[in-house]
């Protein structure tokens, strides 16, 4: 065993085994929880407050980012008293714009980095990418791991890279994207989660949103278990961010159930749990309005940006 910052680094070849069938059964049970009345309302508001409102497109412009930032702070002004989202998530080149827009609102700016989404660039480039985002005002960095290296068994490379990026982040919190759709097996997801946490991740995150499947409940559950084990062993809390594919309120509530029952209520704040999503917010808003008025409103009553 090696030591890093007081942590004993385990042999990642020995990461716990995951039985997929068992995971599917456990997940099915979360989905059977009945979330009604006040708990539904509270859950929906919580979900809104945990969203990282995201735009990650080649065609992003300051104009688009400004619109999204306004939406982040004013989700549905027709209905006063709603929380804001947790953060906006953009490419490094858009960080400055976003930071200006959300200044003082409490909404954080997250930036993807490290040659997102493929991560196929030398470490120097990734470090520069990260520092640029941090210097431009990013509060959070969403990095991708080198999946090629991981799949070829070079866990030390993956570990060292995460550790290096963490250092470059300074005060910014680091979310490590595993891109679970490319890791394929839950055994791999678990091992990559362990590597990321021991290497210094503040959050672990499922996906870039560019690869399918993304944040399935099976994958998120496997990562939550890794976080729980890490916490039991080290006493350190790590955040979780499922991203990609969580587009409706029901799925969001099921995710919250899963967090509550796997990690406990302590994780149910946007300090420790986020949804990476672009279309989730409006579905949650629609459900909130439905719960309050008893009527489903057309999508046209909710602004798209």
């Amino acid at each position, binding site marked *: 065993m090696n030591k890093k910052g007081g942590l004993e680094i385990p042999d990642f070849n020995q990461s*716990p*085994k*995951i039985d997929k*069938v068992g995971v599917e059964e456990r997940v099915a049970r979360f989905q059977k929880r009945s979330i009604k009345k006040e708990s539904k309302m509270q859950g929906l508001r919580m979900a809104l*407050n945990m969203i990282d409102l995201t735009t990650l497109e080649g065609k992003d412009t300051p104009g688009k980012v400004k619109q999204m930032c306004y939406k982040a702070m004013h989700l549905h002004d027709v209905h006063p008293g709603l929380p*804001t989202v947790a953060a906006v998530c953009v490419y490094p080149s858009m960080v400055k714009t976003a930071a200006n827009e959300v200044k003082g609102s*409490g909404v954080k700016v997250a930036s993807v980095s490290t040659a997102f989404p493929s991560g196929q660039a030398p470490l120097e480039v990734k470090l520069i990418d990260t520092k640029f985002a941090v210097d431009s005002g990013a509060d959070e960095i969403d990095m991708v791991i080198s999946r090629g290296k991981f799949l070829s068994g070079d866990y030390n490379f993956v570990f060292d890279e995460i550790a290096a990026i963490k250092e470059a982040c300074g005060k910014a919190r680091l979310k490590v994207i595993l891109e679970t759709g490319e890791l394929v097996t839950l055994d791999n997801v678990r091992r990559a989660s362990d590597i990321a946490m021991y290497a210094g991740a503040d959050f672990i995150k499922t996906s870039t949103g560019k690869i399918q499947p993304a944040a399935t409940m099976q994958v998120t559950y496997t990562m939550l278990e890794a976080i*729980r084990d890490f916490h039991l062993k080290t006493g350190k809390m790590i955040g979780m961010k499922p991203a990609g594919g969580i587009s409706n309120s029901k799925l969001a509530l099921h995710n919250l159930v899963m967090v509550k029952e796997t990690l406990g209520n302590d994780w149910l704040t946007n*300090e420790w749990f986020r949804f990476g999503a672009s279309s989730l917010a409006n579905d949650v808003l629609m459900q909130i309005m439905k719960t309050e008025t008893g009527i489903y409103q057309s999508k046209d009553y909710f602004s798209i940006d």
Partner: protein
Amino acid sequence: MAKKQIKGWDYSPAPESTSHIDLKKRYDLYINGEWVKPSSKKYFKTINPANEELLAEVAHANEKDVDKAVKAARKAYEEVWSKTSPSERAKYIFRIARLMQERSREFAVIESLDAGKTIRESRDVDVPLAANHFFYNAGWADKLEFAFPNRKVEPLGVAGQIIPWNFPLLMAAWKIAPALATGNTVVLKPAETTPLTALKLAEVIHDAGLPPGVVNIVTGYGDTGAAIVNHDDVDKIAFTGSTGVGKIIQKAVSGTNKKTTLELGGKSANIIMDDAPLDQAVEGIINGIFFNQGHVCCAGSRLFVQESVYDTVIEKLKHRMDSLIVGDPLDKNTDIGAINSKEQLDIINGYIKIGKDEGAEMYQSKCDIPGSGFYCRPTLVLNVAQSSKLVQEEIFGPVLAIQTFRTVDEVIQKANNTPFGLAAGVWTDKGSRIFNLTTKLRAGVVWANTYNKFDPSSPFGGYKESGFGREGGLHGLEGYLKMN
């Protein structure tokens, strides 16, 4: 930080509605296709174990009533059912299955009210599985010559069936479906604490147009069961229940021509090897012992954990246990419901007291439990010895006896060192280990990397004091047939 921090989240009550169920105040006996008053003139009360409220009064059948039921079954067998073509028999059974599905919500709610089991389980396990047993056996009714090639098979005649309180409707289905498919007629006695779904099943059977007398349902206590067992004109006794009663039945039928199947108690071993996927194994431990409040004959009530992973498994198990919700069986979010009866709760508490008196290391989950009704916290007894009563005897409640082991040989020896042999579970990532253990464990069912999985096509039954004969699958048909 965003402006608004929200912390803590609990589930609001989500009770299943009871407005759609139709329960009579008083139930008579279902004999020869009609509801008849008991000649005993006696009725007993069946209550909701979750709040001790009265649900209904139910007839207490005496010897005369049982005789009437057996005569009706005999007459129906001789005059109607044995002359009904197998494909016609199948149609009736399919019809029963479909009617059960149509009324599944009502069945589930009544099962939860009467037995204390959670609506999640009665809705997702008991009722669908019961309907599936009718579907499965209906399929065999006209294919028996293919089921048993080169054998000439004949029904036995009248089957007397006595079922327990832990899976009231499901056990009725396990018993009635194969009996009908093989051409027998039935006299069935449900348990005294949980007669209601069997009586609702009588309504379904009636609605299905099954000829009078083919299925008769008589309610009552042990004396009613004894009257069935001792009746001269019964050809088959199928019993599921305690080993104690099983022994009495076995004595009573010895020297008679009655064919018998007994499905009795168990103290099944759930074995966690050091290479197992531990989080899923923990889930399997939970399902193994806390499913249906531990009122499961094949419950994984003896846990064996390999010493090298013992601390990790126990830590994870306690963590998971604390997230279980114990309470109102009708709430859709309840994980563990009410203990079936005051008597059973006393028995369970008696065992917990033994543990405490012996100074055993115990852990009970921290959840709140309701003030009224019969409830028991999920309980672990850690590091308990093979010779302890808690390891030797069936508790039939949410109490798990935990032992450690060092080698495969040791755990096989310990797992088999019991008068029972109903089921076992093995958790390992290694295929060869699964085969090694499953071939050496003397238990009727061995699950690998799962627990408490049931399917109508899979035979179920025990070794040693867990009984004999198999139910379910092809083997289940055999128990109701003469083979020539």
